[in-house]
């Protein structure tokens, strides 16, 4: 066997072995030592990252992709399910990035969660999550992808509800599970359709045998799955509620890895979608709506983690728009660059939160630029990368997406919404930086501000380097499969930048209003709409369950009890038979002698009539 392919396959499977080993050490009945989290888990992930660089460099040099089919799991005459890993350019690039970000987050978590007695269990959950995520991205068949999909959903539930004594955390975890489940319906629908119509769950066979078929139904199922997992509009409230979990959880799951699983599914199965105009338009409009709606909600939030969560949701909408534009590679590029700066934003938020004695409200922060200079500089770098500042990481993906949007002959409404959302991105990013790091401190004096710990600084520094150079590195090493439009009018080329600068100026103007008071009773309609998240959770979380429960009550009491049991069923039968029985027994009077006499007389009469 050629050494290149041998190295590729074995290093990729080595990653799995390295990640699973710490879990196996926990299967023994003895308790692990206190530093197990650091010595076993973090080291395993660092090793796995270094090992995953090998296939990455081989891919960069020679462009090798591989599919490894290990084990025949369930094989019948008509249907096969195998354990099969697909290491194409999507998973070869994504795996090192995910491992790099996870390594930084775990190092940060060892500082953030050091006072938690169950830190080992926390790291174990994070490791389980990572394994499920890697299974998801390297899956070559839908069954394995589904395993990874469900795995990340369950670990998300366990990690969001980490502080399970808090009722809000339990509610948020339930919300995450229920919204994800609704999306899972779509995924299972698609899987069933593929199994019955294309006879396989292997991706290669699905692509080859679906050329002539009308794929609208399974594609709608896949879009529903992506809506649930990636918090598109309609199934989005779980993502801001998921901020109840610890900050490392938010950084890992709800910014870089888990929420992109839905988009990743659509990217993987994109060849099925590229000819179906309905699916593409759905993605486009859904993504545009999501990105604008969540950016609007982010404008007036006061919790720093919620702002970053809505920002994630908005970027996910942007990725969905890109898929609707038939550009899966740009969406994937945005996934990779977004992972870096979003995780860094969360880690900086976590550092600030811990420094201010667990204060999360930005109205009670301020002046952190002088007090935590490193963290606020990295916050600024991350925000600049998020808004698409030229030549940072976010620019290469975001600007390319908006250029593609401007030069495509598609829905102008989606374009308008996306540009508006881009300007809102600048506004809320400036709002965060203004309230957190600029101005005068608005917190109490006795706060444990300390960012001198190396396990805080090093992860954030690593991710900052990633936020700066990742975009450049990735775009300069990979050829696009669709030729991008290179020439366009100047105003279209500069549209993203202009809109962002416009947003920045508006935000600066609004920020300067905080020290002036024009109206004592301001008009609050739009602010209320944005702050209450468009009233979406308030309506849906009460109305839908209430309707369902009243329907259930109507079915149980009116239909079953009153109708089936009393009018139609057993009691109905009684009510019909009882008058008949009463009548019959009332007729019986017990006059035996009269009966017998009549019998004798009628017998005599009959005999006489037959004889004469």
């Amino acid at each position: 066997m050629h050494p290149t392919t041998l190295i590729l396959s074995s290093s990729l499977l080595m990653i799995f072995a390295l990640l699973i080993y710490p879990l196996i050490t926990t299967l023994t009945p003895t308790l692990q030592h206190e530093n197990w989290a650091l010595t076993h888990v973090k080291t395993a992930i660092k090793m796995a990252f270094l090992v995953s660089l090998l296939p990455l460099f081989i891919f960069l040099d020679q462009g090798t992709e591989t599919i490894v089919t290990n084990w025949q799991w369930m094989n019948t005459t008509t249907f096969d399910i195998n354990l099969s890993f697909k290491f194409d350019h999507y998973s070869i690039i994504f795996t090192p990035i995910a491992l790099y970000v996870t390594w930084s987050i775990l190092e940060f978590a060892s500082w953030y969660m050091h006072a938690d007695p169950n830190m080992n269990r926390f790291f174990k959950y994070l490791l389980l999550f990572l394994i499920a995520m890697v299974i998801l991205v390297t899956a070559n068949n839908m069954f394995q992808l589904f395993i990874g999909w469900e795995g990340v959903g369950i670990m998300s539930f366990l990690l969001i509800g980490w502080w399970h004594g808090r009722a809000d955390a339990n509610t948020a975890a339930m919300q995450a599970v229920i919204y994800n489940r609704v999306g899972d319906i779509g995924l299972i629908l698609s899987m069933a359709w593929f199994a019955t119509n294309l006879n396989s769950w292997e991706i290669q066979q699905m692509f080859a045998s679906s050329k002539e078929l009308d794929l609208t139904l399974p594609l709608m199922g896949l879009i529903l799955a992506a809506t649930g997992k990636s918090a598109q509009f309609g199934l989005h409230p779980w993502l801001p509620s998921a901020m109840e979990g610890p900050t490392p959880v938010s950084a890992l799951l709800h910014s870089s890895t888990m929420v992109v699983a839905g988009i990743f599914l659509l990217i993987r199965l994109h060849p099925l979608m590229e000819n179906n105009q309905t699916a593409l338009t759905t993605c486009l409009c859904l993504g545009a709506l999501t990105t604008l709606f969540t950016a609007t909600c982010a404008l007036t939030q006061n919790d720093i983690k919620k702002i970053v969560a809505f920002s994630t949701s908005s970027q996910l909408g942007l990725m969905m728009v890109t898929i609707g534009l038939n550009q899966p590679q740009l969406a994937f590029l945005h996934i990779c660059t977004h992972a870096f700066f979003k995780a860094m934003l969360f880690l900086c938020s976590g550092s600030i939160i811990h420094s201010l004695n667990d204060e999360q409200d930005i109205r009670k922060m301020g002046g952190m630029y002088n007090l935590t200079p490193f963290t606020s500089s990295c916050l600024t770098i991350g925000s600049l990368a998020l808004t698409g500042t030229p030549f940072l990481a976010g620019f290469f993906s975001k600007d390319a997406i908006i250029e593609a949007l401007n030069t495509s002959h598609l829905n102008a409404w989606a374009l308008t919404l996306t540009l508006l959302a881009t300007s809102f991105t600048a506004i809320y990013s400036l709002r965060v930086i203004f309230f957190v790091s600029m101005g005068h401190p608005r917190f109490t004096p006795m706060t444990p501000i300390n960012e001198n710990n190396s396990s805080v600084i090093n992860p954030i520094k690593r991710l900052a380097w990633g936020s700066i150079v990742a975009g450049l590195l990735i775009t300069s090493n990979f050829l696009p499969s669709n030729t991008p439009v290179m020439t366009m009018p100047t105003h279209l080329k500069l549209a993203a930048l202009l809109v962002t600068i416009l947003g920045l100026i508006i935000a600066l103007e609004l920020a300067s209003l905080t020290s002036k008071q024009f109206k004592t009773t301001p008009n609050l309609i739009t602010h209320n709409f944005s702050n209450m998240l468009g009233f979406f959770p308030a309506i849906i979380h009460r109305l839908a369950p209430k309707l369902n429960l009243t329907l259930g009550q109507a079915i149980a009491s009116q239909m079953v009890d009153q109708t089936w049991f009393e009018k139609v069923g057993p009691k109905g039968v009684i009510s019909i038979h009882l008058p008949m029985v009463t009548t019959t027994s009332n007729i019986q009077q017990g006059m035996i002698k009269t009966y017998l006499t009549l019998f004798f007389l009628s017998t005599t009469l009959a005999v006489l009539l037959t004889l004469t």
Partner: protein
Amino acid sequence: MTPVHFSFTSAFILGLMGLAFHRTHLLSALLCLEGMMLSLFIALSLCALQMKATGYSVAPMLLLAFSACEASAGLALLVATARTHGTDHLQSLNLLQC
């Protein structure tokens, strides 16, 4: 009609009249029932003998067995009536009449 034929026919009819027109005691009705059974027994036996139909020879025995069962059922009813109503007078059996 031969004399034997006439005798068991008339025995049957008399027993039937006694069953229909009984006046006071339930026991007399049961006795008439027994008389009817007896006449039927004689009729069946003579039928089997005179028509040389040996296949019917077992029928009288069966009739006897069934009439014994029926007599015991009737006596059980009599005892039950005596238990619930105190007597077997037929006037007291009209309690269902409203």
